[in-house]
């Protein structure tokens, strides 16, 4: 019984949130949700659709044609050319798109390479498909960069895909064009798929350049790119996203998508249309705000430099500081110093210690892969007030 699910874990982020809910004054820097509400123009677009009575029925399985056409137009602005009729699929959030993709392109027993630390749910989806996640560590000392040599070593005859998040959650890293092209070369040489989750690509700071392999037409049969409206338009609850690739891949992925959800929620598809019709200005507003918050959280972490070391994120709204070994040795949670058996700072115990002592929720780095151990993820999707209060509390215990 439950053979398929027995090795699948509930997200550590959700577990932390659940624990934090027991503390009435807890401040959560754990969950990766924007504090903004969905913009008014999106709500109005949905109201209009409701009034016209067009949201009650299923849409076509790949999504409303008018939405897919808008998606194609928005992709074209970023030098990505995909046919809305056959190559764009609207999904119920990016995780549904990811699940449908993995299920479509793999067979049980295949391996999927994931640079880590990275988003927690990738591992579970790969496990669910009966495949094996193979973690390849990112180089923290080079700003969490991809190290191509390690990918070469990780490839086996069972490898089917390399699956990365760019910009990366939890590190906020943007992979360089050179790194990505090298990864693409490797995929070409070994006949692998590339899955690129780009949900944070709209929040880029300090004029850093962002490049997507979907801009390379020669890679379109190899690459599946996923994008979500959740972060860019503060629509996490609407569960709406899309993926695109060459029709050869999309026509297979759509079979799984159809079995899983029939179609993405139609009401949310109208919301997504509103987002694409007039949402650009809003993204700039969000991005500006996140940049201010990133600067604030870096400033506050700087004041705790005895406790944490960190790489300034270039994107997204996460920071992934490393817990100082000295601090972990000094702290005590009733079971001795906060160290793992290997003598590294234990991120899980540290996160719980912090929650109990300071009532600040953060995500243990180990949730993002073995290389994330010794770190914590903090979200600056929260308001400045919350960030300041959380750090005021932490300073009392960590300084």
């Amino acid at each position, binding site marked *: 019984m439950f053979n398929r699910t027995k090795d699948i874990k509930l997200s550590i982020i959700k577990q932390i949130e659940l624990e934090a809910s027991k503390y009435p004054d807890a401040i959560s820097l754990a969950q990766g949700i924007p504090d903004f509400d969905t913009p008014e123009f999106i709500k109005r677009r949905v109201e209009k659709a409701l009034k016209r009575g067009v949201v009650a029925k299923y849409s076509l399985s790949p999504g409303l044609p008018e939405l897919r056409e808008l998606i194609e*137009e928005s992709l*074209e602005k970023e030098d990505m050319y995909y*046919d809305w*009729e056959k190559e764009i699929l609207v999904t119920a959030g990016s995780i549904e798109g990811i699940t449908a993709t993995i299920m479509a392109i793999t067979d049980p027993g295949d391996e999927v390479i994931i640079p880590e630390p990275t988003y927690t749910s990738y591992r579970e989806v790969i496990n669910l498909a009966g495949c094996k996640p193979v973690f390849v560590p990112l180089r923290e000392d080079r700003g969490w960069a991809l190290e191509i040599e390690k990918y070469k070593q990780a490839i086996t005859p069972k490898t089917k895909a390399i699956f990365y998040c760019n910009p990366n959650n939890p590190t906020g890293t943007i992979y360089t064009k050179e790194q990505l092209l090298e990864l693409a070369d490797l995929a070409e040489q070994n006949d692998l798929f590339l899955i690129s989750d780009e949900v944070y690509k709209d929040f880029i700071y300090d004029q850093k350049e962002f490049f997507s392999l979907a801009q390379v037409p020669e890679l379109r049969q190899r690459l599946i790119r996923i994008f979500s409206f959740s972060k860019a338009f503060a629509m996490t609850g609407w569960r709406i996203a899309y993926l695109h690739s060459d029709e050869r891949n999309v026509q297979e992925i759509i079979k799984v998508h159809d079995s899983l959800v029939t179609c993405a929620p139609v009401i949310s598809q109208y919301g997504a249309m509103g987002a694409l019709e007039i949402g650009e200005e809003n993204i700039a507003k969000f991005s500006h705000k996140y940049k201010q918050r990133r600067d604030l959280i870096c400033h506050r972490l700087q004041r705790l430099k005895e406790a944490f070391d960190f790489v300034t994120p270039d994107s997204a709204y996460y920071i992934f500081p490393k817990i100082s070994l000295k601090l972990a040795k000094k702290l005590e949670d009733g079971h001795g110093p906060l160290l793992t058996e290997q003598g590294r700072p234990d991120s899980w115990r540290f996160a719980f210690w912090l929650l109990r002592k300071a009532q600040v929720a953060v995500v243990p780095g180990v949730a993002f892969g073995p290389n994330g151990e010794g770190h914590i993820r903090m979200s600056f999707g929260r308001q400045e007030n919350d960030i300041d209060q959380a750090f005021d509390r932490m300073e009392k215990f960590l300084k």
Partner: protein
Amino acid sequence: MKSFFKIFLKYYLKLITKLVIQIHRPLVIGVAGSTNKNFVKKEVKARLQELGVSARANPKNFNTEIGLPLAILYLESGYNEYRKWLPIILKAPLRIFQKDFPEYLILGLGTSDEGDMEYLLSMIKPQISIITDITQRYKEGFADMDELVREYEILARKTRKNGTLILNADNYRVKKIGENKPQKVIYYGQDQEAQARITDAEKIRTGQILKLDLQGEIKEYQIPKFGQHHIYAFVIGLIIKKVLEDKHGKQKDKGLPQT
């Protein structure tokens, strides 16, 4: 208050737009259909620029009772914010005196309810009208498909008598609109009767290759985009170019991406 403001805005913008059109007398190319309007507008604009004429197209969804006049007047939308509308209302009359008003306006015409097309065409009279296709998209505002098709019939009827209708021959509803019309009618598509006939199309890694028989002249083209709608858009651009070449001369032609 909200609906009163909308009514005021609608008629105010219409009045200014009619004045602007009367004074500047641009040639209007109307683009209608259930899909592909924006890609067609882009292609047409690119081809007109090759001919060295000035042209402006309406931004993506500016094709309704408020959007169309804004596009003609080259103004932003205030969307649902009153304070944003104030400078727009003040700026609108200044367009009457605008220098360098474009020679051509390429305007998407949206219709989602009965009467929409009639209203839009009370502001403009297209010299060339393009109908990309008619599908069940936006059908919810109409009693049936016949009623929806009637909107496009109105467009054909109100296009200048010495003008041109460019119609998709692969969509039988669109094809039928071209019957017994006083304007010059040019059909495009794979249909045997199309004057701009796509005889072959092939997808390659970096785009598509198509063969086009344009009134007896067969040429091969390569486009960097995917999907049949881009082939249609490209062909429409070529037709427009051919139609207007005599008017503006071939000397400014910068050529097309021919293989």
